[in-house]
């Protein structure tokens, strides 16, 4: 037998909603407090018949809903304004309109979950499959289409015979006495249970180890450590020659490297003429580049006084008549093309810089062979400076 002999209560079944309303009213009027009505769906008017007070569930909802709103708003204020303040999209640190959506969602989430969990646990004491009524023919009937009322033995006025008479009088179809079920015992230290615990522990450890130490390093979870791209000098599977780095297309001209058409010719064409005016900026640029690239051999003042101490043959002075009478184009051609043992400087010095060097060389030559008019100018200038 699955039950004890202790009586939980007496239950009666009725056929129609009208009958159960009537029964509930009469039983309540007779002064019974510990009664319950079981119906397949909520029957209108039953709460009034049983004299039940309205549900207080709403207070849980209200409390948790307001807590959710306050928590969300305060948390976002703290995170965005105090903990890690950052201006995003020009919004202020405390951006109320932008905080509204999340505040609303958190409010709804907390209110709903607390209502449901509060109702099931706090109000209903669920899960409770071991309730005396569960598993009885009475519950089986009220789950389909019957309407039942149950008077519990814990009621002060409980008297089995009187209640059965009352229920008969109200027109009950079946009357059933409900007994308490036996207490179920769950022995913990069974070998079966201990084996189950051990198996669970081992399986959990293995899965955890696998996930953290193996799975996270497998494709595609490998945190982008393996990427389908070529790094410099790597072999390519795509191109036939296997080079990952590609040469530019034949005839490609790099920016700022327009080819020089007179390479290797002894004398430049007459078309080469200086495109730059000897402005202060241009001459400053020429001076800078001359001192870097030209002065080691030609000397700081173009006098052919090399600083290389014989490691490389000294070039002739640039103040010679031949040099002074050379056209700008010729000087440019020599820098670009090289001359005798002087190599080409085309790869180190850009076109603009080469012309600027030519201008600077002219300045040096003019300084060495100044005219009377130049001295007049200098005097004028220094006099102006003294004043």
């Amino acid at each position, binding site marked *: 037998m699955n039950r004890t002999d202790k009586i939980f209560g007496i239950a009666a079944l009725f056929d129609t909603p009208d009958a159960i309303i009537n029964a509930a009213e009469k039983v309540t009027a007779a002064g019974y407090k510990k009664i319950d009505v*079981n119906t*397949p769906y*909520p029957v209108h008017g039953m709460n009034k018949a049983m004299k039940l007070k309205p549900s207080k569930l*709403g207070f849980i909802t209200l409390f948790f809903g307001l807590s959710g709103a306050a928590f969300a708003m305060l948390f976002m204020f703290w995170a965005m304004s105090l903990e890690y303040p950052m201006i995003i999209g020009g919004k202020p640190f405390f951006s109320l309109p932008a905080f509204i959506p999340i505040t609303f*969602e958190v409010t709804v*989430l907390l209110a709903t979950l607390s*209502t449901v969990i509060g109702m099931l646990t706090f109000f209903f004491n669920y899960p409770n499959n071991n309730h005396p009524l569960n598993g009885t023919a009475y519950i089986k009937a009220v789950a389909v289409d019957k309407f039942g009322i149950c008077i519990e033995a814990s009621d002060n006025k409980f008297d089995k015979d009187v209640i059965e008479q009352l229920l008969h009088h109200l027109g009950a179809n079946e009357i059933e006495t409900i007994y308490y079920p036996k207490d179920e015992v769950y022995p913990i230290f069974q070998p079966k249970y201990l084996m189950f615990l051990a198996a669970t522990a081992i399986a959990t450890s293995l899965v955890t180890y696998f996930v953290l130490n193996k799975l996270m390093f497998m494709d595609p979870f490998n945190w982008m450590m393996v990427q389908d791209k070529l790094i410099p000098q790597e072999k390519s599977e795509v191109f036939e020659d296997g080079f990952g780095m590609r040469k530019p297309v034949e005839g490609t001209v790099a920016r700022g490297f327009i080819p020089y058409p007179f390479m290797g010719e002894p004398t430049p064409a007459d078309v080469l003429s200086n495109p730059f005016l000897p402005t202060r900026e241009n001459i400053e640029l020429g001076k800078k580049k001359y001192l870097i690239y030209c002065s080691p051999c030609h000397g700081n003042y173009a006098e052919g006084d090399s600083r290389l101490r014989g490691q490389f043959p000294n070039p002739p002075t640039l103040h010679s008549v031949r040099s002074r009478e050379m056209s700008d184009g010729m000087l440019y051609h020599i820098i670009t093309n090289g001359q005798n043992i002087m190599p080409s400087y085309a790869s180190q010095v850009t076109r603009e810089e080469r012309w600027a060097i030519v201008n600077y060389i002219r300045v040096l030559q003019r300084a060495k062979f100044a005219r009377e008019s130049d001295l007049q100018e200098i005097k004028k200038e220094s006099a102006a400076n003294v004043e």
Partner: protein
Amino acid sequence: MKIDYKIEPPVVEGRLSLSQIEELVAKPLETRPDKKFFIAIGISGTALLIGIICVAITLHYGIGMWGNNQPVGWGFGIVNFVFWVGIGHAGTLISAILFLLRQKWRTGIARFAEAMTIFAVICAGLFPILHTGRPWLGGYLFPYPNQHGLWINFTSPLIWDVFAVSTYFTVSLVFWYIGLIPDFASLRERTASKVKKIIYSIFSLGWRHSNRNWLHYEKAYLLLAGFATPLVLSVHTIVSFDFAVSIMPGWHTTIFPPYFVAGAIFSGFAMVVTVLIFVRKIFNLEHIITLNHFDKMNKVIMATGMMVGYAYAMEFFIAWYSGNPFEQFVIINRAFGPYAWAYWIMVTCNVVFPQLFWIKKFRRSIPVMLAIAILVNVGMWFERFVITVTSLHRDYLPSSWGYFTPTLYDIGILVGSFGLFFTLVILFTKTLPVVSISEVKAVAGGAQPSHHGGNH
């Protein structure tokens, strides 16, 4: 003809008794699946498998397998996300808003619509997560204390989306489960199988149809409906914020939130009609899901369809009225540019065809409503496509204009999402009661006391 509108037609037809209702609803759960079931799940499972393969390839090679690239950075990923979230909205509307409006006819279809909500949100959630490229790092989307001392950007619409969709899913699931508890208890008492009895006992939590429980239960249902109603409106509002908060012409409009919500209900009802037509036929639920139900749902489809049509017209009006040349360009480009075909599919399916529902005969004709509902679903998918793609493909910089073409993988994942949705729906019809047993019993003829006065 004089009709007395005070007398409502009976919600449950055929004078079914309470036990007959239960018998009818519980039958699919107690019989072995037949050939039709396996054919159906074979088709949906194939679609799902196609999707799984495409997702696996996407995860292996990366998001580059998809068609989205500059300038259309939001392709199918966002289109499908918005589409599926929208489908879900009908469920909450039926279960929550119609509950608050005391529409008794909702009981026959509420359970099914709620289930569709949950499945649709699952499908929707996949797309943004896949679009991130590394879905297993999705936890970074939630605020959690970390060693960088960094928090997510709470002012970003994309984070609002995370909160809205996850809250929506949780609340829908809880709402659904609360409705299922009494049915689990009924099934627990019905079943002869020992395994089923254990499962139903666990999920019924020991429910015993007690009136002391019904008292709180009804209150909880009301409270949940009260919260789900603004929630469902907020979810698609926030989804529309993804677009509206940006400064793209064609997206940056204040009409987006109501326009999106109307569109969501529109497409959701169309999907509910589409699926219920089959469920009703296959499981012989003609008396519980009646033509009156479809009639009412078709009226909702027509009404929301006209709201959507109004929004399309208003976009043109505002483009002209605002005098903003960028806005004007986008709207004209939408209707007459390279994506004009998509725009006109959208307008025809969403605005023109639902007008047929003005005629009562069409509202109550199964083939006509099936055709229109499918067309509406197509149209609503194209609406999201038009919004997302046409605004992006010609942006402020004419040198970067382009034409978005989806790849095979885009289409495969879309097919897969339909496969997932219908697989879940088909499994649902065989594992859980597709109609709320206790709720339908409560509205059946003679279920409530006769002397009971008042109206509630």
